[in-house]
């Protein structure tokens, strides 16, 4: 049986149905240490979702024409406005879907013991968050996408508000929500405006229209609209200096929630929608974003250097890492884009491992203050191993995954010299130094030296089987993705190569210095012919839905 | 000598404005209610004036309905006032401020 057309629907529906079923499952009142039945249920659901998502890489067509989508499902939903139930996957989103589905069981495991009360509420919200996230990755209708986008805010806000760590949680939740909601309100205006202009929410059509400059609007208006999109996404990423919510939200959110808090949703949206619908405008603002990305890298790392609270450190470390992606994708080079997308995967995995480990520490010792720790390495040899592996991956050690991403991003950044100043690449690269500094310092303060104050009072245990189960897949992936990146890159490249600017060999001195690398012609030749033909079919398809609202007015 | 319609209208406007002012200034709820009646009367005068101007009787009928409505309102309003007085033992509007921010 061919699952291809419905697989995406199944992927979204599975956690949704799971959430509903869990909601109907009564809390186990007899269990003393919190009921496990919801955790087990959530684990089963998430594992099944993961299984379903694996269908995608297994059947992905690597030779499909650029800018096309696979596993598409395109059904009419609402006629006015013309909203379609349009799902699809391409090289950009495929691994992100698998990633999201992969992190979910880990999140369930990470919450196994830490969520003691209201387990039902927690796992239901967790699964809803999962639905929203997967929905964002597969939605190809702007409106549908926006629905999932907004939907993703709610479970997260409730998770923070209900399961936050300190008394500050409500404030943090509201801050998170406002930061995310207000810009996405502007995003909605942008979407509506675009709709009023083109009469369609369909991303492929909009993409084709944009590529052929068929969106008839004054350039300034288009730029403003693109900024409305970009700002909404930038806050979610977050891009410096829009990261005001991150610190509090990371500090409060439970491990499973914080794992999916920052990064991939916003970055994916930038890649998919900002770049897709506003290719020219995105390139126009790229120098600014490159600068912000580079500053964000150094800024996050430098502040992480002085933080003693582990969660705050993690927050700024996250800022630094997502800034790498920002820097990469806005170079509009193949290297930068591919590396950026790859780095989204890395950042999520590394962040997940990092937050799981922090959660383990907190579970044992009840504090996130580094000054309370010290000398734990003798007590938790496995934990320190995992910590060091994670930190090394985060610091971009070669043969671990972080390196591949960062390396490509910075190379891409250097390649796109024409777009910006070399200074930004240099500043971005300093992140390599500062990143290693704060991470190693953190390791030292927690694990090395003599026993700290907390470990003296509380005795902890090394990783248990469940915790091993959480961390080993991640550690293994760090290594596999570090040495076998083409497995992932192959799909990503089908997105990155056509999206990038044709390599201009913009560099300062090389025009006369060298013959162009033999690959330049290869990449340049991918995009044009197929695009134009595609455009024709799109525009003919466009006639009917676009015409209706015009007449209605 | 013919009086311009505008004069009637202005007279109505004066009465209407005095009605507003009375609503604002009076403290006794019943008096305030009376000032509303004054405003309604001003409107009625306007209706009649226009009715005269347009040679249309419907304006006058409107006034008739306003009277009926005013009577109904008066019944209900005074009932409300009575029930309020029973609870609060005052008719001073400045003291009716339990509900506020």
């Amino acid at each position, binding site marked *: 049986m061919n699952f291809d057309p419905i697989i995406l629907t199944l992927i979204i529906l599975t956690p949704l149905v799971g959430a509903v079923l869990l909601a109907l499952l009564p809390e186990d009142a007899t269990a003393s240490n919190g009921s496990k039945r919801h955790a087990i249920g959530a684990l089963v659901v998430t594992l099944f979702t993961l299984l379903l998502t694996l269908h995608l890489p297994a059947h992905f067509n690597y030779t499909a024409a650029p800018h096309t989508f696979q596993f598409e499902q395109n059904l009419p939903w609402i006629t006015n406005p013309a909203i379609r139930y349009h799902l699809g996957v391409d090289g950009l989103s495929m691994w992100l879907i698998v990633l999201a589905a992969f992190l979910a069981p880990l999140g369930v495991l990470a919450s196994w013991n830490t969520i003691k009360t209201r387990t039902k509420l927690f796992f239901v919200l967790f699964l809803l968050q999962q639905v929203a996230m997967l929905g964002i990755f597969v939605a190809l209708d702007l409106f549908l996408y926006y629905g999932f986008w907004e939907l993703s805010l709610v479970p997260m806000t409730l998770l923070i508000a209900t399961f936050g760590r300190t008394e500050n949680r409500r404030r943090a939740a509201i801050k998170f929500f406002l930061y995310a909601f207000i810009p996405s309100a502007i995003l909605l205006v942008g979407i509506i405006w675009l709709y009023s202009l083109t009469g369609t929410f369909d991303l492929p059509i909009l993409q084709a229209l944009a590529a052929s400059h068929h969106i008839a609007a004054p350039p300034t208006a288009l730029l403003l609209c693109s900024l409305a999109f970009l700002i909404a996404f930038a806050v979610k990423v977050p891009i410096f200096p829009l990261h005001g919510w991150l610190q509090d939200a990371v500090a409060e959110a439970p491990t499973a929630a914080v794992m999916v808090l920052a990064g991939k949703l916003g970055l994916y949206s930038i890649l998919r929608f900002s770049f897709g619908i506003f290719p020219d405008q995105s390139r126009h603002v790229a120098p600014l974003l490159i600068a912000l990305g580079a500053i964000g890298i150094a800024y996050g790392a430098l502040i992480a250097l002085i933080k003693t609270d582990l969660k705050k450190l993690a927050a700024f470390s996250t800022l630094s890492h997502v800034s790498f992606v920002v820097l990469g994708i806005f170079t509009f080079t193949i290297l930068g884009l591919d590396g950026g997308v790859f780095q989204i995967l890395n950042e999520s995995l590394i962040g997940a491992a990092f937050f799981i480990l922090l959660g383990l520490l907190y579970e044992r010792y009840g504090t996130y203050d580094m000054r309370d720790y010290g000398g734990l390495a003798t007590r938790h040899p496995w934990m320190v191993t995992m910590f060091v592996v994670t930190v090394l991956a985060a610091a971009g050690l070669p043969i671990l995954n972080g390196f591949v991403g960062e390396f490509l991003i910075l190379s891409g950044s250097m390649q796109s010299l024409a777009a910006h100043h070399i200074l930004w690449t240099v500043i971005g690269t300093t992140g390599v130094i500062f990143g290693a500094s704060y991470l190693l310092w953190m390791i030292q303060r927690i694990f090395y030296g003599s026993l700290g104050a907390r470990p003296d009072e509380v005795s902890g245990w090394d990783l248990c089987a469940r915790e091993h189960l959480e961390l080993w897949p991640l550690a293994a992936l760090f290594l596999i993705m570090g040495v076998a990146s083409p497995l992932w890159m192959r799909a990503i490249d089908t997105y990155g190569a056509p999206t990038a600017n044709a390599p201009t060999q913009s560099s300062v001195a090389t025009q006369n210095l060298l013959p162009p690398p033999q690959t330049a012609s290869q990449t340049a030749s991918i995009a044009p012919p197929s695009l134009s033909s595609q455009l024709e079919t799109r525009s003919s398809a466009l006639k009917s839905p676009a015409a209706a609202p015009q007449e209605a007015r | 000598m*013919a*009086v311009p*319609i*505008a*004069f*009637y*209208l*202005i*007279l109505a*406007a*004066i*009465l*209407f*404005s*005095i*009605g*507003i*002012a*009375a609503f*604002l*200034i*009076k*403290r*006794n709820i*019943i*008096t305030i*209610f*009376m*000032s509303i*009646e*004054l405003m309604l*009367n001003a409107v*009625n*005068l306007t209706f*009649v004036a226009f*009715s*005269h*101007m347009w040679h249309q*009787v419907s304006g*006058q009928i409107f*006034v*008739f*309905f306003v*009277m*009926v409505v*005013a*009577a*109904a309102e*008066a*019944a*209900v309003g*005074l*009932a409300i006032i009575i*029930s309020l*007085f029973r609870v609060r033992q005052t*008719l*001073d509007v*400045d*003291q009716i*401020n339990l509900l506020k921010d």
Partner: protein
Amino acid sequence: MQIALFIIFGLLAVAGALNLLFQRHPINSALSLVVVMMSLAVLYWSLGAEFLAAAQVIVYAGAIMVLFVFVVMLLNAGEEDRTHGSKIAYIAGIPGAAATFCLLSFVFLSERKQLGSTEIGGYLTNAVSNITEISHTLFTSLLLPFEVTSILILVAILGAVVLARKEL
């Protein structure tokens, strides 16, 4: 004659209104309002609305105002205190009222020409009498409002009973 009526009863109405405003005892205010209504009745008559003039006296002055006076008596309302519960009423309200008046007058004065003037008895010269026409309209084209008003009165009665009933 029209102008004389207008001036005399117009001034009387304004005076009554102002008296309502300045009297501190509700009974006095009520009586001032009766003066206003009576004056208006005359003005209605001068504008050719005899039926309304009569109704004004009977319904308004006779019924409604009596109800008012009755309630004033019932609740034994005395002179009102000069409490200072609201500054806004003076700061915003009175200028608002004044501005409303100015704007209304501005409109009426600027449209004075188009509005025309009264013709004494102009309306009365119509073939059908005022009352006939009113009743005709009332039972044909405005039948529904007339009928629906009964619901209104029903509601009012019901409401008055509900609210004024003692037991709860």
